[in-house]
């Protein structure tokens, strides 16, 4: 029988933006009961910049990153709300936050406060640069970590400026979930909770370029962006196909693959061409080779060309955009997307991985503002259902408001 592995786990998600909420989303996908705490006077950035028609409730970003969570709004300046959060924390297993170091202490929810109330609680802090050090008070988003870590210096067109890759929020969010799981296993064995100081700069550096930083230490050579080329194999590139903005990426990993590739293109003279006769030659004459390959690939549609090359065991893939991903036959056949979500006709992304006995489940999309105020506040016993006042529209400020 399948059962969610984190069923019965209670998590307080006192975080905003993307990385830490993504961490809590993973725990929620696998069964944890996650309570998202919000502040009406400064909504999360994922609720967008507008207020009209309660549009902050329907942003796809919010719906995805906070799915499966319950939402409560609290104003910690009010003693009863302060107490309500402490009551929630007392019954929680995990408390997640990503404010600047010191902010939670100031609010009365530092690890010392939390562990005094709930001895074996696990607290995950996901600050930008870590809880200590000379950058501790600095703020950061994905674009900052990519830059300050050195990650961005490795991405770009050849001889071009550095380029963004992805926000680092996802990999940092997964690292956060990994950290929580590490602490849960520790607690399962010892009964002991703990404090986790996850620096988003460090987690991103570790996961993305740990090997490059080690390489620099060993060889003192400054890597520059390779464009779409491979450090070892040649050729590798992104080549144009028929149609507007249609591309295919191809990698040739051996002499046998090179010969098969030339045969498929129908140009066996390339096999004997001294410019491309071995790996070193193909690296040296990569520019010429890219031009020749492009002259062939542009005669094809990228999907059929991918199938043709894959049939001959050559790594080739169409570059898909969001629409194409959404109808990709492989994902369809695997029933990757989730379609039957209560209360909405929208499709959602599936699970990041699957467990044969441990169910991942999408119960509901990211909640409306204050959607679970009643049940949560009544649950902690601080308020009777009749005393909970509705959210006043005039109190609402977005993350982008400047007043």
């Amino acid at each position, binding site marked *: 029988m399948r059962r969610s592995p*984190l069923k019965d786990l209670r998590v307080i998600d006192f975080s905003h933006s993307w990385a830490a909420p993504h961490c809590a989303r993973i725990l929620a996908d696998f069964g944890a009961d996650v309570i998202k705490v919000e502040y009406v006077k400064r909504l999360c950035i994922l609720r967008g*910049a507008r207020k009209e028609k309660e549009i902050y409730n329907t942003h*796809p970003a919010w719906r*995805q990153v906070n799915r499966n969570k319950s939402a409560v709004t609290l104003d910690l300046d009010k003693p009863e709300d302060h107490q309500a959060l402490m009551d929630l924390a007392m019954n929680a297993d995990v408390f997640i936050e990503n404010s600047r170091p010191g902010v939670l202490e100031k609010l009365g929810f530092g690890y010392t406060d939390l562990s005094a109330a709930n001895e074996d609680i696990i607290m995950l802090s996901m600050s930008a640069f870590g809880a200590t*050090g*000379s*950058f501790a008070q600095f*703020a950061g*988003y994905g*674009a900052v970590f990519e*830059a*300050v870590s*050195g990650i961005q210096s490795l991405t770009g067109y050849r001889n071009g400026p550095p*380029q963004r*890759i*992805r926000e680092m929020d*996802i*990999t940092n969010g*997964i690292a956060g979930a*990994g950290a929580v*799981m*590490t602490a849960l*296993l*520790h607690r399962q*064995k010892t009964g002991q909770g703990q404090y986790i100081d996850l620096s988003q*700069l*460090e987690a991103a*550096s*570790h*996961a*993305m370029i740990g090997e490059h*930083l*080690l*390489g620099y*230490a*060993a060889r003192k050579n400054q890597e520059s962006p390779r*464009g779409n080329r491979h450090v070892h194999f040649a050729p590798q590139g*992104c080549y*144009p196909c028929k149609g507007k903005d249609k591309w295919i990426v191809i*990698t040739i990993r051996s002499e046998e693959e090179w010969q098969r590739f030339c045969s498929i293109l129908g140009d066996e003279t390339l096999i004997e061409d001294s410019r491309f006769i071995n790996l070193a030659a193909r690296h040296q004459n990569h520019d010429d080779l890219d031009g020749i390959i492009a002259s062939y690939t542009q005669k094809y549609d990228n999907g059929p060309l991918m199938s043709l090359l894959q049939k001959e065991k050559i790594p080739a*893939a169409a570059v*898909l*955009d*969001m629409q194409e*991903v959404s109808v990709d036959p*492989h994902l369809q*056949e*695997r029933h990757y*997307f989730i379609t039957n979500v209560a209360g909405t006709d*929208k*499709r959602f*992304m599936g*699970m990041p*991985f699957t467990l*044969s*006995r*441990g169910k991942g489940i999408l119960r509901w999309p990211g909640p409306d503002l204050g959607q679970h105020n009643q049940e949560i506040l009544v649950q902690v016993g601080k308020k009777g259902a009749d005393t909970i006042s509705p959210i006043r529209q005039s109190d609402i400020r977005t*993350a*982008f408001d*400047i007043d």
Partner: protein
Amino acid sequence: MEKKALHNFLVIDVSENRAGAYCGKLLAGYGAEVIKVEPSCGTSPLREGGPFCHDRKDPETSIPFLWLNTGKKSITLDFENHDGMGVLKQLIRKADVLLVDLGPGKERELGLTYDVLQEINPRLVVCSLSSFGSKGPYLDYVAEEIQIQALSGMMSMTGETDREPLAAGPSICHYTAGLHAYTGVLMALYQRNEDGVGQQVEISMLESSLENIEIALTTYLHTGKVSKRGPHPGVPWRSFECRDGYCVVIAMPARNWSKSADIFDDPFLFQEEYKHILGRIADRLTYEEALQAQVIKFEKEELFRAGQEKGLAFGMVVNLAEAAELQQHRDRNFFTSIDHPASGNLPYCGTPFKMSQSPWIASRAPLMGEHNNTVYEEKLELSRAEIVDLQQRGIV
């Protein structure tokens, strides 16, 4: 009290690529005993590929191998041989976790599928990593990192609008999968500690990678809007050229942006219609051009610090040399020195996150087959004669 979080877990790592190896590295770092199983003839891809420490091909100094196998033991074993597989299965009987990434076809051929493994050891957690999962039309497709970036949609969103899609420099899909594998394996162990039964964690690198574009993809699913490569929607929210490189200027937190009027000497940037991000987005090109004219006056570290002092999320683009010397990394001892017989003493990134009660263990990658004796004699209690026989037949 043994403080290591994952102490007492035995992990058999037969993975060949970055994703599985990174998962194993994290398991070892937090205290598991991880045994890397390497082919007895020839070498594993991470040992062969380089780059190498001294620009000389030496399987003991391949940098990806050194990085991805810290804290593991190594045995050599040809498990494609029938008797070799017998030895591997003896190990699997004692193990808590098996990491495998040989591909669904090869795994079936070798009998390393979950239904078989489950019978050998019902408590086992099997983490199967592959490019596309264990079923579906792309099942037998071959893929390197760039192919996953392409099919997952990530690549269509990276690079400049008018140029070809661009691959990320780092192996982001492999490492994303490695992090998912680590998390999934621990969830399975957590569940097993409650009821004693293992399970399979399946990582399809394609599906794992889709997470990296969760907002863009969900936006398409819900609104039909296709995100393309090009600038971040926010203004300003990108790197700008400065005197000695590139500086990241982000007008967040929004309430602090007006404070940068003390940094940038141009009232145009702070006039009424540009106070809110929506006004700046409406006039992106003009606004960014005016800002660029200001940013070029600064050195990157000067502007990075000036912005941060005003509470703004500014950054600077650093290269690897600068990253290695970053003050914050020194302050937090992010790099740990690890000695290795072939590569010498080198600084490695240490703990990925600091746990107050569960220390990270920094120790070197093993030499090939370094732990054959310990594992075969002590763990499996094979006799000297059995080991010699296996060695003579090239299985160990």
